[in-house]
């Protein structure tokens, strides 16, 4: 089919010459450029959500506040430190002993520092009191309410974060953003339909006499519409391929630029082969389909008004 579209096709109507011969390509190129951007953003947001959800669900974080120095003392005593560490290890030991926990681990000091780095930076005082963070991996059917109760029985002042609220907020935010991007794609497609329809009508007006001559020789509307369809489809495919290529280059450039940005502030974005295929094929196919249907409908409607 592609060969048939791009091979030398003789138009009875001089569609390939004159003012605006390439307007369809330009309009589609721009449409596809923004549509590819919208899809990329959508895929990116979905990937970020998935990463967050995968990272947070099925786990639970227990936070123990560091002990404060006893009254009249400047520093925390060794006994206090030891009790603090023992308590953290006791909670981590739930992994393997508690039915709802498969593994438990006290985060190393470096990991805790890394987590607060985006807010406090790297130049932190060495004696900064840090909380103990215990990461518990949950069993698939774990009863988090019962587990929370058991943890609080061990450490009544512990903060138990099941991540549910965070996940809910993040998912709602990202889903709203994705919906907005999809609406934007819809508006872009609508604009493309209006633009292609307008251009086809302009071509019909410019080539009115040729169209009339073909009618008088005995051409059906479909014979004439086929030429407009072919011309529009060819222009659309040219524009769509250029639009996708331009957007991929833009995405690559953005990727190169963001490599220098502190990665701790950006979530990890990974596109699969399926994502890349969707990113390339969807805008081209959508563009071709929109052009084909719009040209057909516009031409047939306009020709029906002639005799």
């Amino acid at each position, binding site marked *: 089919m592609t060969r048939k579209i791009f091979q030398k096709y*003789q138009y*009875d*109507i*001089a569609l390939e*010459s004159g003012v605006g011969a390439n307007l369809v390509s330009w309009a589609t190129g721009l449409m596809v450029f923004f549509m590819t951007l919208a899809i990329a953003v959508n895929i990116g947001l979905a990937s970020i959500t998935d990463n967050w959800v995968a990272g947070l669900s099925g786990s639970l974080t227990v936070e123990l506040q560091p002990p404060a120095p006893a009254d009249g003392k400047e520093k925390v005593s060794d006994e206090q430190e030891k009790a603090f560490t023992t308590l953290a290890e006791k909670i981590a030991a739930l992994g393997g002993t508690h039915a709802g926990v498969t593994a438990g681990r006290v985060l190393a000091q470096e990991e805790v520092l890394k987590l607060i780095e985006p807010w406090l930076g790297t130049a932190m005082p060495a004696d900064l009191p840090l909380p103990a963070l215990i990461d518990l991996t949950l069993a698939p059917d774990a009863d988090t309410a019962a587990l929370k109760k058991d943890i609080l029985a061990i450490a009544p002042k512990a903060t138990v974060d099941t991540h549910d609220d965070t996940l809910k907020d993040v998912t709602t935010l990202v889903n709203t953003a994705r919906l907005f991007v999809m609406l934007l794609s819809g508006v872009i497609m609508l604009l493309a339909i209006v633009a292609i329809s307008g251009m086809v009508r302009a071509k019909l007006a410019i080539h009115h*006499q*040729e169209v*009339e*001559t*073909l*009618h*008088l*020789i*005995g*051409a*059906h*509307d479909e*014979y004439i519409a086929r030429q407009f369809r072919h011309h529009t489809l060819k222009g659309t495919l040219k524009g769509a391929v250029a639009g996708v290529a331009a957007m991929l280059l833009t995405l690559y450039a953005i990727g190169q630029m963001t490599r220098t940005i502190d990665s701790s502030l950006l979530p990890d974005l990974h596109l699969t082969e399926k994502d890349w295929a969707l990113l390339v094929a969807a805008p081209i196919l959508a563009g071709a389909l929109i052009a084909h249907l719009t040209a057909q409908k516009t031409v047939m409607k306009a020709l*029906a008004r*002639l*005799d």
Partner: protein
Amino acid sequence: MALVSFSNVGLRYSTGPEILNDVSFSLEKGSFHFLTGASGAGKTSLLKLLYLGKRPTRGIVTMFGEDVTRMKREQLPAIRRQIGSVFQDFRLLAHLSAYDNVALPMRIAGVPEDHTRRNVTELLRWVGLGEKMEAKPPTLSGGEQQRVAIARAVIARPKLLVADEPTGNIDPEIGMKILLLFEELNKHGTTIIIATHDADIIRRFGHPEMRLQDGTLIMPKSGVKAA
């Protein structure tokens, strides 16, 4: 049964005066007529009705046994393919070669390309354009363009041939050759109607004359039946 029949036909453009009024006649299959009249008498308008470039504002036009006055537009192409038209302004497609212009009616009708090639080549040679098959209309003289237009009108062997001043721009020798081609087509059954001012041609070929005066067909002579 008449091939073409006009009954009390009237034609006006928009809200203007009636260009043709109460035109009634019928053309038998295989007949040959000349359409005459002064400039502005309505010859071109009558031909437009014959090649279905216009529909009458009143009256009934029947062609090939079908009432085309109120025919659905989807049915018109099938009727138009049976009509060959030589337009006054030729209406050649400027970006196509002489060959492609002549081949158009056959391509539209879906005739196989090898058959089309054979016929178009032969006809273009016959009208003296064998060397200019690939030339585009703007590079051809008026007479050459007219011959391309004539070749396009006759290539599909139409049942009805309608020609508006077909020999107006060509030299007498070629003009005579064209008319002999029309005669040949007529012998094979094509009904022909030619609008012309050339009294010599009318006298020489002796076919009946339909005369229009101020939009009225006033004097259908022998061979034309008043409907």
